[in-house]
């Protein structure tokens, strides 16, 4: 792990923990519960940032995949791989927190609404992404890059196709100022956490490649 990314990783870890505490305080102590939905609405402060992080990380996969195919350098592949894994974790969180909110508010755990369905399809695409990486043999990284590009371009088309199909997800609403601030703090905390996880995961991948290389040298 080079010095700069180590330093950034440590700083982002420290800042992420600070912001997480502030966010938790704001969410559970400061900000008032929503009028109609009550306490369950607070899951929104986790749901939205998790969705943002999954989009961000799949965007990073997209860019890193293009760079990998173009320049054929390992580091872009390591970045794409790390970001894809983290993105899938946060996408899973979105799919878990959504139904927990939906059950009391809509009365059902799941509904085939456009954003839910799009997120589910997104989740399936990136499960496939990690699968092709794992089972593609020594071409795994390259095939992963292809799926990282094709999959990300698919997101807007999936969204529109399913929106025309049907939709009931609440549209973006105007929030009280204290709610906006809480959401922003939560977004910052999640983004810092993402940065920290990403750098750690990339460093781990790099170390793994280095060990593989050393093993081959010994033979």
């Amino acid at each position, binding site marked *: 792990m080079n010095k700069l990314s180590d330093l950034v990783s440590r700083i982002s870890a420290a800042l992420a923990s600070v912001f997480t505490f502030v966010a938790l305080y704001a969410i559970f102590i400061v900000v008032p519960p929503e009028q109609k939905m009550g306490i369950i609405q607070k899951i929104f402060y986790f749901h939205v940032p998790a969705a943002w992080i999954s989009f961000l990380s799949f965007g990073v996969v997209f860019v890193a995949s293009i760079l990998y*195919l173009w320049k054929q350098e390992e580091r872009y592949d390591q970045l794409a791989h790390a970001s894809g894994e983290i993105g899938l974790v946060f996408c899973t969180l979105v799919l878990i927190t959504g139904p927990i909110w939906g059950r009391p508010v809509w009365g059902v755990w799941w509904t085939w609404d456009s954003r839910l369905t799009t997120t589910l*399809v997104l989740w*399936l*695409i990136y499960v*496939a992404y990690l*699968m*092709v990486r794992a*089972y*593609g*043999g020594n*071409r795994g990284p*390259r*095939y992963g*890059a*292809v*799926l990282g*590009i*094709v*999959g990300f*371009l*698919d997101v807007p*088309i*999936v969204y*529109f*196709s*399913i929106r*025309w*199909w049907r939709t009931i997800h609440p549209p973006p609403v105007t929030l009280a100022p204290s709610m906006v601030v809480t959401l922003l703090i939560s977004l910052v905390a999640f983004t810092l956490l993402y940065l920290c996880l990403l750098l750690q995961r990339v460093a781990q991948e790099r170390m793994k490649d280095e060990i593989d290389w050393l093993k081959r040298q010994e033979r």
Partner: protein
Amino acid sequence: MGFLIQLRVLLWKDLLSELRGKELISMMAFFGLLVLVIFNFAFEPGSAEAAHLGSGILWVAFTFAGVLGLNRSFLLEKESEGLQGLLLSPVDRGVLYLGKLGGNFLFMLLVEALILPFFALFFNLDLWLLLPQLALVAILSTLGFTAVGTLFAAMSAQAKSRELLLPTLLLPIVVPVIVAAVKSTGQILEGRPLAEVAQWLKLLLAFDLLYLVVSFLIFEYVVEE
């Protein structure tokens, strides 16, 4: 002009090998037929529900048959070292892609044409007058499906778990194509005018163009050693 001649030769190679054996198309069509039959056990035949579900079932049959065909398309090349020969020939990788795509597209369209009469028979539908509209939807959807499918088939043919890998990769990506195809086919079967379906056709066209260009550009990274 060299480009068109190359494309014709590549396409003719696939068509000829299929014409000699007819293995792929007959198996795909038979499999599609089986899907139609098996789905009929899921509900009361001839009910209003059946008519409503018809377009979905039809496209499940087309999709599964299509995956079956795509799985074979690079396997034959792989078994007989044909792919290596193609890569050694002085042909642009993009043209290679278009050649394979052309074959897959035509095979799948032919299979759809073979399955459709059975669909009309099983569901008691009179499709004669709707044929032009249905053909348009089928062509646009099949083009999008095979545009991505050909790219992924080239990938999965070189992996260990190939038969499993292709549907795993392809089906999530082609969700918009399937949604659009099912919806527009449903609307056409209900006798709605083509103008109402236009929005879906535009979506299909956008998907087709995007993935034709992207696959054309990426294909070389998939087949190259």
